[in-house]
């Protein structure tokens, strides 16, 4: 990451203000529930769609700062993401999935991946 401290500071500040406004404006101004079905569905699925776009394919490369899509992902990334996917099919326990995936990635790192 090569950006200046100044850039980083203003980026953090701007995103913080935007985040606060999104929370504060509806809480103060809007007092009735949204009735538009399309809008409600859109607001509900959007975070999941963005999460999916953020996770894939980056998650596979998270354990190695030098690796990036479309190169071959490190084994530790494949192991960690694989464990996270399989385990989260069985349980919605977030800390458990995060810990198990981290453990799998750590093991793969130790084995040289």
């Amino acid at each position, binding site marked *: 990451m090569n950006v200046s401290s100044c850039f980083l500071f203003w980026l953090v500040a701007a995103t913080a203000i935007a985040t606060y406004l999104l929370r504060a404006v509806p809480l103060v101004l809007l007092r009735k529930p949204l009735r538009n079905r399309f809008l409600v569905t859109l607001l509900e699925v*959007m975070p*999941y769609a*963005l999460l*999916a776009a953020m996770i894939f394919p980056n*998650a596979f490369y998270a354990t190695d700062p030098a690796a990036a899509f479309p190169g071959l992902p490190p084994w530790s990334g494949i192991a960690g993401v694989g464990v996270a996917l399989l385990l989260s099919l069985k349980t919605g326990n977030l800390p458990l999935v995060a810990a198990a995936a981290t453990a799998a990635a750590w093991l793969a790192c130790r084995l040289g991946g």
Partner: protein
Amino acid sequence: MLSSPAVNGSSNPEAEALTFSRGLLDASPIFAGYLAVGFAFGIAASRFGHPFWSPVLMSLTHVSGTGQFAVIDLLREGAGFGEILSAVVVFNLRYVLMALAVAQRLSPSVGAWTRLAMACGDTDEIVGVAARQRLVPPRYWFGLFASSYAGWVSGTVLGAMPLVQTLLSADLLRALGLALYAMFIAILVPAAKKSRGILFCTLLAAALSAALKLSPWKISAGWGMLIAGLASAIASAALFPVPEKREEGT
């Protein structure tokens, strides 16, 4: 009278039991969870080349795991100011929906300044706990927030501290870079299992995100994520609208 029970409009005994300390207590699982996630965020930010103050300032001012992670994930890929800001805004548009759910549970006597202060604590987890109450007194909300905020910020400070990092092995640090992605997978997969709309948009967004990175048009990371996410969400909302009658408080 200052100690009148009618303060906050909570003249019913149910809401009266919801004190500040009850909020602190009810949020103890959030405290523990945020401590761990904050720690992973602090580590990830340092791994991605951030100075100590950057993840800490983010946790102090954002209190938003996904938004903060989007910032460091996109910076790592070399995204610019405008695209990162847009990505955070779109990511956090969901807070509008959550703020609305909270607004339904506030007494009309709660004033604008109190609402502005309460907005700081509008996160997925706090709203999830608060939404179990029919009427949320502000002091209960502030109790929930104080507990969660303490966990979030102290976790981040610990994770971003160079001293703590020297105590962890290089392999463990590498593996911890994956912890937050794994947690997001654990949010995504169960939701996709339950809803066809979410399953559809998840698969489409993942495929589009990878395809845009491979495309010859040199779309940068932030815009790529936004285009993939927005297009999939719009397609999903058009194809799988939520049923007309929805459960209260979700």
